[in-house]
C-alpha cells in the first residue's frame, strides 16, 4: 500500500498514516493479548508452586513483589533444595511415574517412527498388492486408524491384556501408544519420502547397493529432519496420553498424567503441591516445545500443504 508521496503530506495522507498506526496498534494488541492467554496459565502454575496458603487466598500474583516465594510445594514432592538430598518416598514415587511416562513415550515414538518410516517409504516407492488392496488402499488403511476413537479399543484391550498378563506393564502401554501415533508418522513420512527424487536410489543401486542398503544409507539421512519431526510430535501425544494409561495401569506402570489426575481431587486448597506436580509434568514438554519448535511446526505443516 506504499503510495508514492509526490508533494507534501495532504490531509488524506495524514489520515492514512493514522489509520496505519492504529492498525499496527491493533495488531500488536491482539498478539500481546493472545500471548497472555497462552502463557498466563503456565505462569500461574509455576508461580503457584512457590506460594503458601495466605498467598493463594489473597490472590497474590507476582513473586518477590506480592509475596515471598517458598519451597512448600516442591518440598511436598521432595524436590526442594533442602529435601533433595534426603530420602523421600513421594519423590521416589514421582520419579517412578516420570520414568514410566518417559519410557512409554520414547519407546512408542521410536517404534512408531521405525515402523512408520519403513511403511511410508515402501508405499512411496513400490506398487503393492495385498489381495484386492493396492497402494492407495493400503495407505488409506493405515491413515484410517486415526479415526478410530481410543474408547473403542480400550475395553477389548483391557480384557485382552488381562488375559495376556500385560495389564499394568509398560510394554502394554508402548504397544497401544505406537498404534495411536503410527498413522500420524506414516502421514508425515510419506510426504517426506515423496519429496526425495528416486534418481538417488537408482544411482545408489547402479553402484551396487541393495534396495535396503540404499534406503538405510542414502534415503534415511536425507529424511532425518522429517523423522525427527514425526518423533517429536509422537512424543508430545504419547507423553500427554491419559485415557489408556488410566484404564490399563494400576500400580507399576502408572504414568505422570494418571498421577496428576489422581491427586487433582484430593488436594482441596492445597494448591502449592498440585502446582509443583503440574509444573514438573509439563516442564519437559515446554522445554521440548521451546527448543524444538522448528521440528514440531515442520511436522504439522508437512501433512497440511501438498
Amino acid at each position: 500500500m506504499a503510495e508514492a508521496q509526490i508533494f507534501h503530506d495532504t490531509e488524506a495522507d495524514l489520515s492514512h498514516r493514522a489509520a496505519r498506526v492504529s492498525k499496527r496498534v491493533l495488531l500488536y494488541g491482539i498478539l500481546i493479548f493472545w500471548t497472555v492467554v497462552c502463557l498466563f496459565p503456565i505462569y500461574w502454575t509455576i508461580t503457584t508452586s512457590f506460594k503458601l496458603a495466605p498467598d493463594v487466598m489473597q490472590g497474590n500474583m507476582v513473586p518477590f513483589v506480592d509475596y515471598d516465594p517458598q519451597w512448600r510445594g516442591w518440598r511436598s514432592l521432595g524436590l526442594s533444595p533442602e529435601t533433595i538430598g534426603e530420602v523421600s518416598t513421594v519423590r521416589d514415587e514421582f520419579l517412578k511415574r516420570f520414568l514410566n511416562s518417559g519410557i512409554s513415550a520414547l519407546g512408542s515414538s521410536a517404534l512408531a517412527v521405525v515402523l512408520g518410516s519403513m511403511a511410508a517409504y515402501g508405499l512411496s516407492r513400490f506398487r503393492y498388492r495385498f489381495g484386492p488392496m493396492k497402494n492407495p488402499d493400503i495407505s488409506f488403511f493405515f491413515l484410517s486408524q486415526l479415526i478410530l476413537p481410543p474408547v473403542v479399543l480400550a475395553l477389548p484391550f483391557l480384557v485382552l491384556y488381562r488375559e495376556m498378563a500385560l495389564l499394568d506393564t509398560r510394554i502394554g502401554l508402548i504397544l497401544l501408544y505406537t498404534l495411536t501415533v503410527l498413522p500420524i508418522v506414516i502421514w508425515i513420512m510419506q510426504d517426506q519420502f515423496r519429496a526425495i527424487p528416486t534418481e538417488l536410489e537408482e544411482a545408489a543401486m547402479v553402484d551396487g547397493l541393495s534396495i535396503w542398503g540404499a534406503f538405510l544409507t542414502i534415503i534415511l539421512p536425507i529424511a532425518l529432519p522429517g523423522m525427527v519431526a514425526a518423533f517429536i510430535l509422537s512424543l508430545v501425544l504419547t507423553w500427554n496420553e491419559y485415557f489408556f494409561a488410566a484404564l490399563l495401569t494400576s500400580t507399576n506402570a502408572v504414568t505422570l498424567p494418571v498421577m496428576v489426575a489422581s491427586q487433582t481431587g484430593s488436594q482441596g486448597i492445597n494448591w502449592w503441591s498440585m502446582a509443583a506436580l503440574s509444573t514438573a509434568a509439563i516442564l519437559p514438554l515446554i522445554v521440548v516445545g521451546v527448543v524444538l519448535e522448528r521440528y514440531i511446526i515442520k511436522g504439522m505443516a508437512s501433512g497440511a500443504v501438498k
Partner: protein
Amino acid sequence: MADQGDLLHVVTPDDISDRRKRLGDVLVWGTAALFAAVAALIAFTDLFDTWRPGLYAFLLFAVALCAAQVIRGGEQGSRTLFVLPAALFVVAMVIFPLIFAVGIALSDWNLSSPDGQKFNGLANFRQMWNDPFYWNALTNMVWYTLAILVEYAIAFGLALILASEIRARKFFRVAFLLPLMLSPVAVSWMIGKSMLEPRFGPLARLAREMGWDNPSFFGSPEMARFMIMAMDAWTFIPFMMIMLLAGLQAIPKEVQEAARVDGASGWRGFWEVTFPLMLPVSITAILIRIIFKLKLADIVINVTAGGPGGATDSVTSFIFREYRDRSNVGYGTMLAIVYLVLIVVAITVFMKLVDRWMNPRY
C-alpha cells in the same frame, strides 16, 4: 493421498531355488501351526495360566512371515518387507481386538462379578437405545464439534497475523504453540481446577471485578459446557493455527500482489483471494481437528466428571465412567462400537460433501 509419485523401477534377477521356496513355506506354515497349537492349548487345557505364550507364538509367526518374504521372493520380497511389519502390527492391534470387541459387545459381562462373559445378543443395544445419558453424550459431541468452527476462525485470524509483517515473529510463534505441548490432565488442573476456582482462582477474581458477584463456571449446564469447550480450544487452537500458517506461507506472494494491483485489498482481497486458496488446507485442518475432538475425554473426566447432570459428558468420558463405576465391559463396548459406526458414517458423509463442494459436477 491417491497419487503415487515416481515409482522406483528395478530389474532384479529372480533365481530362487525350489529348496529356498520350500524353506520359506515350511517357516510360515510351521510357525502358523505352532501359533494355532499354542492357542488351542491355552483355550482348551490348563497348561498355561495366561495368553502370554500365545502372544510370543504370534510374534514368532510374524517374524517368520517377514523372513519368508525374503527367502521366497528374493529382492522382490524384500520390498514387501517395508510395509509388512507395520501392516502386521496394525492388523494384530486393531483388527483382532475389533472382532473381539464385537463379541464383548454382544454379551453381558461385568468384570467385577464372578459370572464371567454371558452372551446376550442385542440386549445391550436395546439398553443403549433407551439410555438417555448416552443420547445426551452424543448430543454434547455435536455441540463440541460445532465449536470447531469458532476455533477455526480464531486460528485463522492468528495465522493471518503471524504470516503478516510483524516483529519478534519467532517469539510469538513459540508462545502460541506452547498450549499444545501441555497434557490435557495438567490443563484441567491448571485452568479448570485452580484458575476457575470460584473463590481464589484468578479468573473468578477477574469475573468479580467485572461485576459478576458469584462467579461459578461449572454451575449451569451451558456455562460448564462452554468452559470445557474453551479449555479444549485453548490446547488445540495452536494445532490448527500451525497448519493454516503453513498453508498461508505456501501461497505465492505474486498472487496476493496481483490481487492488490487489481484493487482487491484488505477484506475483499482476503475473501476473494486468500480464503479460496486456503480451502484445501482448511478442510484438512478441520477434518483432523474433528478427529481429535471426537476423542475428547481427559478434560471432561478430570474437571467435571460429566456433571452437572451429564451436561458436559463426551461419549468417551461417559463410557469411561460406565467402566470405572460399574465395570460393565459388555455395555461399554456396545456403546463404543455404536459410536465408531456413527463416526465412520459421519466422516464419510462429510468427506463426500466436501468432495462434491470442491469439485462440482455440472
